[in-house]
């Protein structure tokens, strides 16, 4: 389970970083979302992975650490708000700058790609 979990987190982080480096606002937003999923999973695992254990003291002999779950919840809420903001900002950037490149215009070497 640990290997699968770690591989998932790693894969999502690498996808997220790749998408962010695409430097167009839509992939960047997707990349940020991917990165925040990975981060949430990672935070969740910081309380050690276990199955069939209650997160409440006294309900099972071995219990799961409840704190990472609370942290993930907070991180999800904050991440959600931030994503909403960056989507709006990306739309505004598209209208204001006339391009979906994060710098307002694509660098010259990329001009072959027709938008």
């Amino acid at each position, binding site marked *: 389970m640990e290997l699968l979990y770690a591989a998932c987190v790693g894969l999502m982080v690498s996808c997220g970083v790749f998408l962010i480096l695409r430097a167009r606002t839509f992939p960047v937003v997707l990349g*940020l979302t991917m990165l925040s999923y990975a981060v949430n999973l990672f935070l969740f695992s910081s309380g050690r992975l276990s199955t069939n254990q209650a997160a409440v003291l006294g309900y099972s002999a071995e219990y799961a650490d409840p704190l990472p779950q609370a942290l993930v919840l907070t991180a999800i809420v*904050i991440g959600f708000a931030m994503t909403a903001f960056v989507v709006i900002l990306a739309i505004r950037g598209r209208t204001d700058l006339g391009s979906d490149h994060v710098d307002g215009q694509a660098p010259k070497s990329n001009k072959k790609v027709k938008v």
Partner: protein
Amino acid sequence: MIQHLPFLPVLLPMLAGVILLIPPFGNSKTSKRVTSVMLSIVAFIAALALLMKVHADGTQVYAIGDWSAPFGIVLVADPLSTLLVCLATLLGVVCVLYASAGDDEKGSFFHPLVHFLILGVSGAFLTGDAFNLFVFFEVLLIASYALLMHGGDKKNTRAALHYVILNLVGSAVFLIALGVLYGVLGTLNMADMALKVAVLQGDDVYLAKIGGLLLLIVFALKGALLPLHLWLPNTYATAMPVVAALFAIMTKVGIYSMMRVYTLIFGNEAGQLSHMAQSWLWWLAIATIVMGAVGVLASKDLRKLVANLVIVSVGTLVALVAVQTAEASAAAIYYLVHSTLVTAALFILADLIARQRGKVADRITAATPVHQPMLLGVCFLIAAVAVIGMPPLSGFIGKVWLLKATLNAEYTFVFWALYLMVSLAVLIAIAKAGSTVFWHHQGKVAENTRQERVHPAQLIALIILISGAPLMSVFAGPLSEYVIGAASQLHDFNSNINLILSGGL
């Protein structure tokens, strides 16, 4: 009431933000402005009251919801954090006052956003919990995103896009760092983390090191340290000047967090991990100072110049943090207060000058003279003398202090030489900018700029900020005593830990 005092600097700005959104106060321009100024003054008074209390009775520890540390979240009002909370709320008062002269109507929700920003900043200063620090960072960031877009144009959108994306990635790194540290240490209370770090063994040491250095990346991004500083000049120069003045405190939040984390958690007592960030910080800080100076010399307009001055001050502060002695921290705290006030004053001055020069705005080139040369000129002179660090103002005291504090650091001769050269560069750049703006004229005062006289509210805001520099040098005695006390408290590992974990009793 009195035992809840440490919570007020967080609670009051939040209430202020909410009150300003609801009808009776949020209806007309005037009612919004009056309420906002009043509420910001109330928050400042609460911060002052907390300062008095901390000065009289020592550090206050406030357990939120009465959940005691390390299980619950605590707010720690020690002399350092309280001083900075006072500074943040003062800056809030000034900016709200300044914007009430008309800037607040260039976009929506200016006043509530300022209060939310102050909430985030005060919370980040006060909190004693690493995850709570993240939450307050996000609060101040989302307010800053919206403020950055306030009254913006195209250039502004681009800078905001960069700033937001960078900070979102920064937040992800912050969470990863916290996850690693929690996984290793099993706690997020900073005092408890410090205890656990000291007894780490085996592979856990390296994991904790990874976590700690990831945190360094985040704080370096917020504080604009060298490889991660490129966002700052554009962001600060395209934001509305009053917003940029308010942002003067935000880089300081990053530096303050560095101070906390690398003196308390990874400080003297941290066993194998003690001072792990020191060698990184020292050289990066020196490089930051040099890059800032290059930026200052290359700046073509006043706002960019001031933004680059912020980078120089960040470098200076981080160098002091890297020395990690109580004396260096004392110098850092004094310099931090000084540089925040002076850069905020300079941003506001740049705005006032730009308004009176018509189309040329704040570009450093010969143009029509400003309408009120005496007022603006004298203010510019005071702020310039302070920021360059010439006697008799606060910059000089800060500079002498910091040179003395770095006397025993490694390779201090490199730092001294570079720092003094940078001071010379800053002196030249500012002297050139000042003489060009105030003495090199072309044509007469344009008719339409005659309307743009300094508004009384703007004048009061400006005077409050400008008077910081002379006051900090007149009252340098009591202030330095307080600051030395704050620094020694910051470095007093055992009493900090005992105080926080016992709930301040």
